[in-house]
């Protein structure tokens, strides 16, 4: 087990280095001059350009810049934003809270709801209830999240005035303590509901199909033959076997949480990582982009190892088998 985890850890590190490498090169190769944006005017003077170029190390070659970047990472320093001149780590940490609040809440609800409905549908496969849930899941799967968000705003905010249209807090009423928590929760309702609608079908289908798959296994016939009540077979044996795929998928979803829900954050003007990302792209704010990418890579690698550890506990086959692709 330890050796296996060690091996996965090495793969993880290689993955982080590789993806940062690709990302770094890609961004630097792109057309568009960040200095002009930084200088802020259409015709900046040469002295200003020179100072800025030097300050951000843009006079060096791309390999040199990459080495500087790696040296920075080793010290926990991801550089400074071209635009706001903030420390990248600080800028990202500031947005991480709101993003996790939104995406994690939605993920937890979607996983619980989707898995429960998936199990219920699988237990009554081909019933009208199963068909109804499958039909709904197809429709929500085909719905663009940003559009659903807009419709939610149109209906529940603009027309019915039940919920706020956007943002995380009411800027006119600066509340503190419990009031602030309630205010944020109030602002969370629409974006979370949108995300839940979009993500639930995914977990629904995984749970449904893996329960059906496990129900067709030979050992289910064995337990049936032994006279074990169906409920017990299901709760103890089907459940544990069928939850394995969900564990993997949830793990990966948690890893990608860090990049934020770009579209939903845009629709609801939620001050999270997704917005930061979009803004950084349009402003050519390379340090922020590279920083976000680095953090996502680390998160993915870490989650990958965590999933393996969890799997090692729940699935005894893992210690021996090669991980399947």
């Amino acid at each position, binding site marked *: 087990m330890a050796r296996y985890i060690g091996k996965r850890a090495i793969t993880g590190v290689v993955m982080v280095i590789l993806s940062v490498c690709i990302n770094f090169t890609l961004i630097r190769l792109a057309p568009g001059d960040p200095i002009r944006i930084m200088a802020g005017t259409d015709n900046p003077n040469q002295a200003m350009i020179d100072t800025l170029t030097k300050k951000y190390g843009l006079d060096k070659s791309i390999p040199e810049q990459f080495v500087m970047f790696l040296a920075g990472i080793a010290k926990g320093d991801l550089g400074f934003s071209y635009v706001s001149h903030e420390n990248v780590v600080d800028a990202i940490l500031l947005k991480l809270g709101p993003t996790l609040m939104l995406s994690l809440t939605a993920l937890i609800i979607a996983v619980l709801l989707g898995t429960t409905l998936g199990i219920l549908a699988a237990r009554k496969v081909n019933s009208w209830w199963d068909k109804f849930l499958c039909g709904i899941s197809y429709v929500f799967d085909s719905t663009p999240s940003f559009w659903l968000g807009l419709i939610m705003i149109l209906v529940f905010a603009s027309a019915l005035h039940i919920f706020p249209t956007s943002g995380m807090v009411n800027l006119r009423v600066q509340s503190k303590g419990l009031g602030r928590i309630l205010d944020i929760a109030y602002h969370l309702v629409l974006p979370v509901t949108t995300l839940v609608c979009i993500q639930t079908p995914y977990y629904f289908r995984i749970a449904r199909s893996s329960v059906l798959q496990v129900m067709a296994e030979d050992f289910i016939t064995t337990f*049936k*033959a032994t*006279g*074990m009540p169906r409920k017990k077979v299901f709760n103890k044996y089907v459940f544990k076997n069928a939850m394995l795929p969900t564990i993997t998928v949830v793990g990966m979803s948690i890893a990608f949480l860090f990049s934020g829900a770009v579209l939903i954050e845009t629709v609801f003007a939620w001050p999270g990582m997704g917005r930061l990302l979009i803004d950084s792209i349009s402003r050519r704010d390379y340090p922020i982009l590279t920083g976000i990418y680095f953090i996502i890579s680390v998160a993915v690698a870490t989650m990958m190892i965590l999933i393996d550890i969890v799997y090692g506990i729940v699935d005894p086959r893992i210690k*021996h088998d090669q991980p399947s692709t």
Partner: protein
Amino acid sequence: MGILDIRNVNIRYTTQDGDVFAVKNANFTIEEQDAVGIVGESGSGKTTLAMAILQLLPGNAIIDGEIIYDGKNLLALSENELNKIRWDDISVVFQKSMSALSPVHKIGAQMEDVYRTHDSSISRAKLKEHVNGLLETVGLPERVYNMYAHELSGGMMQRVSIALSLLNNPKIVIFDEATTALDVVVQEKILNEILDLQEKFRLTRIMITHDISVVASTCNKVIVMYDGEILEAGDVDDVLLKPKAEYTKKLLNSYLNIV
């Protein structure tokens, strides 16, 4: 009347292309401590017939007739009533032993769960002793108790399946192609052990097989099936030495040719 009576049993599967008959008008009686071989090629209905006894057939199977055990028609019992008979009176050793148990639960724990289904009063220590005793009886080391299915070989898993079938001290054990997947040496050994176990546990045994040599060496009664019908049935010595049906002769010839 024997321990198990099969009366006018017809089994068909409903499919989108219409009904498919798997067993046609089967009639036979099994006496206590008989060793009955049901022999036939794949598709002859032998497994369908055997699985019908405990109603382990897929949902699209329709069974008519009567299967009488201990004065009760098994086909007329409710799920709960049938669950009492399953394993406590009649158990099965399945063909695919590698996948006969859950891959993510320990073997000992699964066996204990099965036992407790029928007898929840037993103490933990006693139950563990019982399971380990059975594992030992079928020639498995004690550590198997804490192992998982994938950690065992095909032969070992087959022994686990046999131990599992004896767990609740049944009267009848159905062996469904129980040794087909094993290599010849292991098959020979396990068949011998099955003979010993039958003696020891005073079992009535039903052997489903396509291999007439298995019937010849381990059974005293034989039922020959072809295309869902019972062609002939009787004592092994009578049927194998003086076969009446053409098909039985063919089966015997092909076996003799191999030997």
